[in-house]
């Protein structure tokens, strides 16, 4: 990742039509604190991780890891052979699915708390709870609720449905999606809520005067304001789902059923239970690359980052 090249040293871009701001006045130095932090805490360790992925690093060589044999792309070859692609596929599909469901829920939640009413503060706080509970608590709670003789199956039985196994076999995938949705929708909610605040009061009034009914108003007037933040939220939420390790780990344990052997589980088990750090680093790097490509395409397509001159009027 060659992102954080010192911007100051770059050739100056053509000045835009902006009065009173010259090249010299661009306060690019404001980027340094963040830049330094990212280089120190993320990029250097990342480089180290990539280096580790080229070593035959396991429990036998861990102590003198600097002397661990260099095996080039050996780990990468092996990683492709160890079910990694299957895991990545599960991770990605599970993440996209979770995001797709959480978006409408989150937006709806933001819309219903838009107007003040008695007790709104409490409702808003309640909406935050799933997000505030640590992942492993959420996972433990759902695991006990979903065990074969647990609460969920007891309720389903009353409705005449046989719940069956939620935590093993093919249904475990849907369990993972369900629990992730439950835990993650407040993220979208908060992003949408913040975005709703940027809608000018006059916009509301204008459309009210027009006598627009709620749906056209929502779709044509309000939702466009949410587009940017929500698209961003989708992106970040999907990445968070992909990298969520605690939830599947506590929910299903290791070794996980094949249907929920998501990428972080595989990486974790390989490195911290199988103790093959080199291999697991290679797996993580492969998945990083596989995720980064669609990510880049997405970013270009939604044009989130494109400079909008003058902001919204």
């Amino acid at each position, binding site marked *: 990742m060659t992102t954080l090249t010192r911007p100051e040293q770059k050739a100056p871009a053509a000045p835009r039509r902006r009065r009173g701001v010259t090249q010299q006045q661009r306060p690019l130095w404001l980027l340094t604190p963040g830049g330094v932090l990212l280089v120190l805490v993320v990029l250097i360790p990342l480089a180290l991780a990539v280096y580790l992925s080229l070593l035959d690093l396991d429990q036998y060589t861990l102590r003198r890891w600097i002397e661990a044999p260099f095996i080039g792309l050996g780990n990468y070859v092996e990683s492709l052979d160890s079910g990694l692609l299957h895991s990545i596929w599960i991770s990605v599909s599970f993440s996209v699915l979770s995001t797709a469901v959480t978006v409408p829920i989150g937006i709806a939640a933001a819309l219903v708390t838009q107007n003040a009413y008695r007790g709104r503060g409490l409702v808003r706080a309640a909406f935050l709870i799933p997000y505030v509970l640590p992942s492993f608590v959420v996972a433990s709670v759902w695991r006990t609720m979903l065990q074969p003789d647990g609460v969920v199956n007891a309720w389903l039985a009353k409705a005449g449905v046989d719940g069956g196994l939620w935590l093993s076999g093919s249904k475990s995938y849907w369990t993972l999606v369900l629990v992730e949705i439950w835990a993650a929708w407040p993220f979208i909610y908060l992003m949408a809520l913040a975005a709703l*605040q940027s809608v000018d009061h006059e916009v509301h009034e204008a459309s009210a005067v027009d006598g627009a009914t709620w749906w056209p108003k929502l779709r044509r007037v309000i939702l466009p304001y949410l587009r940017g933040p929500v698209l961003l939220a989708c992106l970040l939420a999907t990445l968070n789902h992909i990298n969520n390790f605690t939830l599947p780990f506590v929910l299903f344990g290791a070794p996980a059923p094949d249907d929920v052997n998501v990428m972080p589980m595989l990486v974790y088990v390989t490195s911290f239970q199988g103790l093959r750090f080199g291999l697991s680093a290679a797996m993580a790097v492969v998945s990083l690359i596989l995720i980064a490509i669609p990510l880049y395409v997405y970013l270009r397509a939604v044009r989130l980052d494109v400079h909008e001159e003058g902001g919204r009027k």
Partner: protein
Amino acid sequence: MSASAEATRLLPRPMLVTLTVLLCAMVLVPVSYIVLASLNSDVGVASGEFWPSSFSLESYTKIWTTADLSTGIVNSLIVCACTAVASALLGTTTAYVLVRYSFLGRLTILRGLVGLQSIPGTLMLLPVFVLFSSAGNYLGLTVIGTRWGLFVAYLTFALPFSTWVMVTYLRGLPRELEEAARTEGASTLVILWRIVFPLSLPAIVVSGIFAFLLGWNDVLFASVLTRPETHTAAVALQIFGTSQEGGALPVYSQMMAAALICAMPVVLLYLTFQRYLVGGLTAGGVK
């Protein structure tokens, strides 16, 4: 309800009520399970009871000795609050530069920041630890086991996110005010402090909340970067999940009680800050 409040209502009332009830039920059913489980016995929870066969508040007194929860909560509050404030401010300044000025590499930085979000934590754990501990060995700087170390780690992980939230928000802000101030000779810092920050409070609060929760819920890094006296609430909570191989029951009801107690400060913080979430622009006086 005044007419202006009526104007901002986005959904028809019946739908609003239905949706609110549904959403609340979705959240509150599992949460009430947690509450009930915290009052139940461990055997009861493990065998899948919803309604406890016996109620007891014992767990709420026991949790404080089972794990050093109070130290954990204090540490978490300090570290996470600092992370939240620092990342929101740093994120805003970074985003401000990225939004208001164009320079070569701007898009690369923006996209790279998202890229950073996709790095799995499990990949970073070992290298970050090696780096932090070698800072101790070579620079004589103790990082492992201090709140500073944790703060720096969380700040960095939160930064790409806060920057992005601020970028999307700041882009929507009109720049007239800033330009007016600038023609009056105000420096960038003054503009940031007096104009940009107040106007973007809702987004700042949101990014602060996320940064806060990032640290609050992290176990992976906290468990290796802290020592007993600097451990965080999440690490202390983890203790309640302990189950011995082939041995005793985990203390489920204490775990639920502790989780609720740990959620409390965050919910309270949110309740105090949520008024800033509302109407930054409308109330802020962009005129």
